[in-house]
């Protein structure tokens, strides 16, 4: 019998994959202040999923392709005169979700699939999902490694990047597309509503623990993997929702790190006053 024939084993592998992927991509999301964009993407890919379900093609492929259109639209609109990126993102969020709801209300018969899509179920992932997540993880990590320094400059100082002659529009698109495929790859495990937890939470926690860029990536990945594995364990022990368990662990770890750093800061200030 194949080790991956076990539901729990598949869930554990998926948890490790999405933990690493979400953690690493999350470092860019946090540094670039993109959590709201990430949240919006989870909603804006919704109509793509619905259309894919109607056409009978892979839901995540549909969501992924539609999401790329949304990314391009947000970028184009956000660069227009008198507009900004946050406004464009807000419109994409509500507009995308509304389109999905309209499409769903005009149909019936695939509500079960769509429920899994909104909250996810890591215990239901098949080998195909694992292969897809692994492929996305390898592709994304490779892209971030190769374009790391250019993405860093474009994130930190966009005008400075343009002044060097870097193609800032392409770099922005590359980063947003990375966030988008990460969202789509995380959806089978956590669902659209909770996927954002594993992308924003571990990186935000790591950011509380270190000021340096290089250790942020492994730290965020480790926190993501630990939360995902803990969520799977809790949900198999007590038969509660897996995606929600993972997201709860992410919240707990962030809360603990936040309290820890706040207390440490207070102690240090008190010591500085006494000294």
């Amino acid at each position, binding site marked *: 019998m194949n080790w991956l024939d076990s539901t729990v084993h598949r869930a554990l592998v998926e948890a490790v994959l999405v933990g690493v992927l979400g953690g690493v991509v999350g470092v860019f999301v946090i540094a670039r202040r993109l959590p709201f964009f990430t949240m919006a993407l989870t909603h804006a890919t919704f109509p793509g999923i619905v259309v894919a379900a109607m056409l009978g093609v892979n839901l995540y492929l549909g969501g992924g392709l539609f999401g790329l259109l949304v990314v391009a639209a947000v970028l184009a609109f956000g660069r227009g005169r008198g507009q900004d990126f946050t406004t464009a993102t807000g419109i994409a969020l509500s507009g995308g979700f509304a389109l999905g709801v309209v499409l769903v209300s005009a149909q019936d018969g695939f509500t079960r699939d769509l429920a899994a899509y909104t909250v996810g179920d890591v215990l239901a992932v098949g080998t195909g999902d694992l292969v897809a997540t692994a492929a996305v993880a390898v592709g994304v990590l490779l892209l971030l490694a*190769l374009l790391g320094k250019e993405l860093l400059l474009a*994130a930190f100082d966009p005008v400075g990047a343009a002044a060097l*002659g870097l193609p800032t529009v392409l770099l922005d698109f590359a980063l947003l597309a990375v966030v988008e495929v990460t969202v789509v790859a995380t959806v089978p495990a956590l669902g659209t509503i909770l996927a954002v937890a594993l992308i924003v939470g571990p990186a935000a926690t790591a950011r509380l623990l270190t000021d340096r860029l290089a250790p942020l990536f492994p730290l965020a990945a480790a926190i993501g993997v630990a939360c995902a594995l803990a969520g799977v364990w809790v949900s198999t022990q007590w038969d509660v929702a897996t995606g929600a368990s993972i997201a709860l662990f992410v919240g707990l770890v962030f809360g603990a790190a936040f309290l820890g750093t706040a207390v440490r800061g207070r102690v240090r200030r008190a010591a500085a006053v006494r000294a």
Partner: protein
Amino acid sequence: MSEHAPTLVLDRASVAYGDVPVLEELHGVVHEGEAVALIGPNGAGKSTFIKALLGLVPVVRGRIEVLGRPPAQARRDVAYVPQADTLDPDFPVSVEQVVMMGRYRRIGWLRRPSAADRAEVADALEQVGLAGRARDRFGTLSGGQRQRVLLARAIAAKPRMLLLDEPFNGVDAVSQHALLEAIGALKAQGASVVVSTHDLAIAHLACDEVCLLNRHQFGFGPTGDVLTPERLRATYGGHALELRGDRVIVTQT
């Protein structure tokens, strides 16, 4: 100075965002080793002037030549120093990582910094007097120190032309001195410098030429000839000026 080659040529140039002209009738020449101060009130178009020299805002009439080329083709030899407070102080990036960004163009895509690049970074930080802060996070430095880090980033790029956007705003005396020293050293090596500033004293101190700007050009030439009360009054739209000997103070910008 005219025996040196011209590095910046403005020939009745107008620049515009879309259909909206921002600066009109720019006209003048800067040579190797010269510094020109851009002086004018807020909203006069000083930042746009600098962006036009980077080829980030199009020239719609006339001609701008940077190092004998159209601006966008000269970027390899031009370094840009933004205002430090336009950058996110929470960004998780160290001082040496910021300075290394000045080397990116020379390092090229897909490649990592070499030992030689790291030596250039250390050297540039030395020149702005911040060698001891290399490993600190950029955002933990004072405003003036962050401005010096950004100048070090430009120095590490080995530019033939340096563009600085309001580098002296909110900068303490120590950092101002360090900035002026480093800019002077670059000039001595033959680089041309374009610096926008509100500070007329600094323009007198550090610059050979002045360009008075407010939507269009109110004067371009040697500092002593151009920084006259009449021209300043015209540039600043008649706002009160007080004259004390050869010093001119703009009381309202």
